């Protein structure tokens, strides 16, 4: 806050006009950009309420919001609800495993001194730089041999593997920063290691867990590549993948297609708008030291 007012004062020295000029230009850039970002999304939502005729004749007109027929079609005539359930299940289960396994590894590496701890951390972090996409052929063969092609488990296994490196990285840094005193006091009282971890330390790691969860939530929820290779059965498809078969079926019905896109975008958009600060922190956290 003080930095801002100090900045403002510096500008006052140079005359208010030049300040207004520059900030005015920046404000115009920001507004133009926001329009460019939101306009397509608004048109998408609007078009979901329109018929083909209305979309082609008046693409930018405000629609009759009472006309829900396209949305009802998507909900009842397609597998949309099934895809949504699959996405929620796969994402939720993967995140749970990522947090449990990631915290276990991070806790051991951060709180105990043992031979090979730093090597282990390096091993986990190395996974951050390896694009698992390029190992898709061996993964395909591995899952075929394990008999989990065409099942949730193929996706969950890949997502957990994808999510662990960043989670171990974020959680280790955070757990290391927690004070030793709490742990030592509990140990003096005769608490077991498990009890110290569960009741004393873990409740303190909540902020880092939220960051890790969001950091992994978005890529997993949105992933399309791994389902494309691993899942053939329509009943097991996740939302992005299901959307491709849905869009292939309704190629001539623009209103239904836009309604489908809107419904597919809705869950994460709503969560993002409510938790935008946490989303932005979580998704950029890997990029900041």
């Amino acid at each position, binding site marked *: 806050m003080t930095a*801002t007012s*100090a*900045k403002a004062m*510096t500008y006052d020295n*140079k005359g208010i006009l030049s300040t207004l000029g520059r900030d005015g230009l*920046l*404000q115009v*850039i*920001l507004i133009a*950009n*926001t329009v*460019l*970002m939101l306009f*397509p*999304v608004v*048109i*998408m939502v609007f078009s979901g309420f329109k018929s083909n005729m209305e979309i082609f004749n008046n693409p930018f007109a405000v629609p009759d919001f009472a006309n829900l027929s396209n949305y009802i079609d998507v909900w009842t005539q397609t597998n949309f609800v099934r895809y949504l359930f699959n996405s929620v299940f796969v994402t939720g289960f993967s995140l749970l495993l990522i947090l449990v*396994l*990631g915290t*276990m*590894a991070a806790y*051991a590496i951060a709180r*105990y001194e*043992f031979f090979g701890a730093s090597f*282990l951390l390096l*091993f*986990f972090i190395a*996974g951050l*730089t*390896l694009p698992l*996409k*390029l*190992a*898709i*052929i*061996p993964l395909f*063969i*591995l899952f*075929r041999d394990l008999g989990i092609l065409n099942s949730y488990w193929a996706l969950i296994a890949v997502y*957990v*593997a994808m999510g*662990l490196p960043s989670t*171990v990285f974020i959680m280790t840094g955070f757990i290391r920063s927690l004070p030793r005193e709490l742990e030592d006091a509990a140990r003096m009282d005769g608490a077991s*290691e498990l009890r110290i971890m569960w009741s004393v330390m873990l409740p303190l790691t909540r902020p880092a867990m939220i960051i890790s969860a969001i950091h992994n939530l*978005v890529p997993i929820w*949105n992933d399309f590549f791994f389902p494309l290779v691993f899942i053939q059965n329509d009943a097991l498809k996740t939302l*992005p993948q299901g*959307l*491709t078969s849905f869009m292939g079926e309704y190629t001539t019905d623009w209103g239904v*297609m836009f309604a489908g896109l809107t419904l597919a*975008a809705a869950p*994460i*958009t709503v969560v*993002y708008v409510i938790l*935008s600060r946490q989303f*932005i922190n979580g998704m*950029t956290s890997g*990029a*900041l*030291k």
Partner: protein
Amino acid sequence: MPRLRLTGRGLWITALIVPPLAVMVTFVAYPILSALAYAFYDWQGLQRGDFVGLANFHEVLFTEPFATWTRNAFVHNVIVFFSLMVIQNGFGFILAYALWRELPGAAFHRVAVFLPVVLSTVIIGFLWKLFFHPLFGPVNQIFRGLGLDFLAQPWLGQSSTALASLIFVNAWAWVGFPTLVFLAGMQRIPGEILDAARMETDSEWVVIKKIVWPLVAPSATVVFILLFIGSFNWFELPYIMVGLDGSPFGSTDVLGLYFYRTAFGNQSAGVQDFGRGSALAVITFLFIAIVAAFWTVRLRKREIQL
């Protein structure tokens, strides 16, 4: 008693470490090492055949028609990377600077610019595919409405504009990421340093060049490297918008599409070749790893620690 405690703790640490380690070994280390090995074998469908040394690599890089396909895809990846470097990261920096000024409405603009980043590429791809429709798409409707009929082109349907259209959509979707990473970097610059700099010079341009840019260098390093890796792994957006063949006429073909076609086949040519696919994956991986490593070292050198 102490000895017993020690083994107990050893067991405890082992119990914590082994499950996550097992996941990493099974689903990361083993597949990646296998990917290297597979490239040296001949494949009959899903069956691994004989060891063939570098034959797959030779085919992919030097035997026609594969060599031309590989080169064509690679050149497009390079174009994508440099274009996005300028458009996406350049505009991201400008937006970050504008947001950093905390003008009225900055919080709202920040949420808006990041919204497409959280949306699935599949949604974004289909949305813009409809928007770019030559006759009914809103993009051309706007151009016609403004009397700019010459701009009402089949953007995705002609070789001259298809790749550029994909690059535009990618920049639209992802500009929020560099914006907010740069912004976080700018917000960490101590106020005293900025105040001191602004005492010295009247030119904000000098402040940006000499103070802001060097001090956000660590953020820039990460943004550049991530864009580099992303550009050479580009797959979802072209797959949705122009299809597996990189249509029209391969003008949007990139390594990701080409790799997928080779490894898993496509409708027009149902053959799949895990050997050549693996060779492509290994070449792509080595290229990304080597360039990213050298570039990171170079970029880190110019970073300033306060």
